[in-house]
């Protein structure tokens, strides 16, 4: 048994972390937020491409390096930690959709561009209030044309192509849309996250290709959940470190506030939630990599636990900072807002805890 990432994967993670430590983080996020014309930091995107981060999962035949889920997960964690203001997570999800469900032609058309950084991808499932990732979308395909409205879609305003959910024959399924087409209309939509751009994709009979089956869609949800769990864990860890660092320095009533159990136990709770989520996320990474049937439950557990961890930590990070944490100048807001963005990316907590129990029920029934 070896329940840890490989040394190679860790080395890649360290590289990414070093780069993002220098170039990304809250300051870079703030720069993008403050510039209304800037949807992302192109220099960081370029650097990430040069580092091969968009190419890790792309097979060698398509110009990538063909690495596994472990590497992708650890990179997602670093993207989360650095609040990286570039469309890396979106492009990762786009890539996974093609890997799971894309035909040889579809892969050959899009993946080389992903690997060399010329293609930014995005993924859209949402259509309005109360819809869940498992609901049948209103978006329909007829005669190769896709009609519907997907919103909010992260990074849509800067993406070249989108994978979106639509009403497949026996459940929601994925379709691929070239956003450079004139009839694919993308408008910017304002969200609670002021850094990552979001868009509405309006499709009125836009030419689009189906991408696999509805079973593929379900598998895609699992993989996406695992990747987003690692993003959440990176963000959570950064917020926790920020809180802890402040508690070590801030003085009230003559002592550093980190001495008070009220503060200390709060920090411990952040850590406990983070570690529980990390264990499930690693389980998910293993199941993803190994193609194990445990992936369904592991992914749902990882998503549920990581949303809990990042939400709690983002909220309590503000609290631990006191008044200063509530100011615009403080970096607390980036974590507070990003936690909402991660949740919106793929259905919120309630959907995933229910999916977890459904998969546990199935497993229980099989065992019986």
């Amino acid at each position, binding site marked *: 048994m070896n329940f840890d990432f490989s040394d190679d994967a860790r080395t890649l993670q360290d590289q990414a972390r070093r780069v993002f430590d220098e170039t990304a983080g809250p300051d870079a996020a703030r720069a993008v937020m403050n510039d209304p014309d800037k949807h992302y930091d192109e220099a960081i995107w370029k650097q990430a491409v040069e580092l091969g981060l968009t190419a890790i999962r792309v097979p060698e035949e398509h110009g990538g390096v063909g690495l596994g889920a472990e590497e992708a997960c650890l990179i997602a964690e670093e993207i989360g930690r650095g609040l990286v203001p570039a469309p890396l997570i979106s492009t990762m999800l786009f890539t996974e959709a093609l890997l799971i469900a894309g035909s040889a032609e579809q892969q050959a058309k899009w993946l080389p561009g992903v690997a060399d950084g010329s293609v930014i991808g995005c993924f859209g*499932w*949402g*259509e*309005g*209030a*109360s*819809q*869940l990732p498992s*609901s049948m979308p209103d978006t329909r395909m007829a005669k190769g044309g896709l009609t519907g409205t997907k*919103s*909010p879609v992260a990074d849509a305003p800067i993406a070249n192509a989108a994978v979106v959910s639509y009403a497949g024959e026996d459940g929601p399924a994925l379709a691929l849309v070239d956003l450079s087409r004139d009839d694919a209309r993308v408008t910017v*939509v*304002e*969200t*609670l*996250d002021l850094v990552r751009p*979001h868009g509405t994709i309006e499709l009125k009979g836009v030419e689009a290709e189906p991408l696999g089956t509805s079973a593929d869609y379900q598998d895609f949800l699992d993989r996406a959940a695992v990747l987003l769990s690692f993003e959440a864990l990176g963000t959570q860890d950064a917020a926790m470190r920020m809180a802890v660092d402040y508690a070590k320095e801030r*003085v*009230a*009533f*003559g*002592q*550093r506030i980190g*001495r*008070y159990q*009220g*503060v200390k136990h709060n920090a411990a709770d952040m850590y406990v939630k983070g570690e529980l989520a990390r264990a499930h996320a690693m389980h998910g990474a293993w199941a993803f990599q190994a193609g194990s049937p445990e992936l369904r439950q592991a992914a749902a557990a990882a998503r549920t636990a990581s949303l809990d961890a990042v*939400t709690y930590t983002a*909220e309590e990070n*503000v*609290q631990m900072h*006191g*008044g*200063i*944490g*509530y*100011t*615009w*100048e*403080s970096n*607390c*807001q980036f974590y*507070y807002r990003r936690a*909402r*963005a991660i*949740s*919106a990316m793929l*259905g*919120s*907590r*309630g*959907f995933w805890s229910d999916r977890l129990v459904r998969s546990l029920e199935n497993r229980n029934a099989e065992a019986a």
Partner: protein
Amino acid sequence: MDFNDTAEEAAYREKVRAWIAENTKEYEGQGAAKTNEEFVARQKSWQKKKYDAGYAGITWPKKFGGQGKGPMESIIFSQEEGKSAAPTGLYAIGLGMCIPTVFTHGSQEVVDRFVPVALEGEEIWCQLFSEPAAGSDLAGIRTKAEKDGDEWVINGQKVWTTNAHLCDYGIIVTRTDPSAPKHKGLTMFIVDMHSEGVEARPLKQMSGGSDFNEVFFDDVRVPDAWRLGDEGQGWQVALTTLMNERLAVGGKPRYSPDWRALLNLAKEIETVLGPASEQADVREEIAKAYINDHGVKLTQQRALSALSQGKTPGPEQSISKVVVAKQMQEISRIALDLSESQGFVKAEPGSELDRFQSSYFGAAGLRIAGGTDEILRNIIAERVLGLPGDLRPPKDTPFNELKPV
């Protein structure tokens, strides 16, 4: 036990309701003020009317221009005022906290100069207490006041000052003797916010709003006659102010959504099993919201009953904010989650969802403002339950020799 007005209370309510109805007609249908000037002008005009009609300072002693009535009358007036179009809010801190401190600790001269004008609404006041390095630990403030003849010279920075940019005067806590122990070297003054050297800058919050200010003091001079209480007695004087604060705060911000908002939102959300409002987990959250929100309201009514019977409501009141702020954060997050990806899209201003979104940010601030959850729990445990205080460094070390551990 009786939730209804007594005969006297009912009569008073009837009287003020009629007066308010008559006198707020001009504010009806007015939108939000477009400029600071317009905002201030409306508030001033309403305060003046109240003053003229004998509804200002309802609980203040008559000798300070008040009406000398009980808290129940004051609450009744506020309730009726709240239901009307009356423009309120600007005087809450000045008349609720600052002027009571002025008339309790100021010289006769100072009282005569400031109190009536303030009550009439002519001059607006703010409270200059918190500093960047002294929030919960108010006695840790560093803003200096040094004596120079008959005047004092103030240097330093305050923060979280409500409406400082609209105010004429403020009450300020300063350190006048850094070599005295922390709580003993403080002195309080009245300061003219229009003096040279005072600069109020809006402080932008995480939510994007700017309800507060940072205020910088650069060689600002105040006459010794404007001192509140003796030199070195600033801590005791500040406690008077804070005591009044405790009575004033604690409720739920008006814009904050309650159980009803969650119920209404959940009714509109269709799930495979029917409306979300029929799901056990959502119902549980609605129940919790009612228990917390309405429980706080009922607790405040208990305190009010005690007050009106001449008893002092205890620090039991502290439960209010500790319950309300966290509840507001939870209910908002739950509503956003229930709304799924739509909950993440910036909502139409004024919509139900917008209230939840604003509250999700506002709550993070409310959990801190006026005492963090942690400080309030300490207060409850120590003052109500009698548990001993946190272990702390020695109390008698001179302030300028304190070394944080």
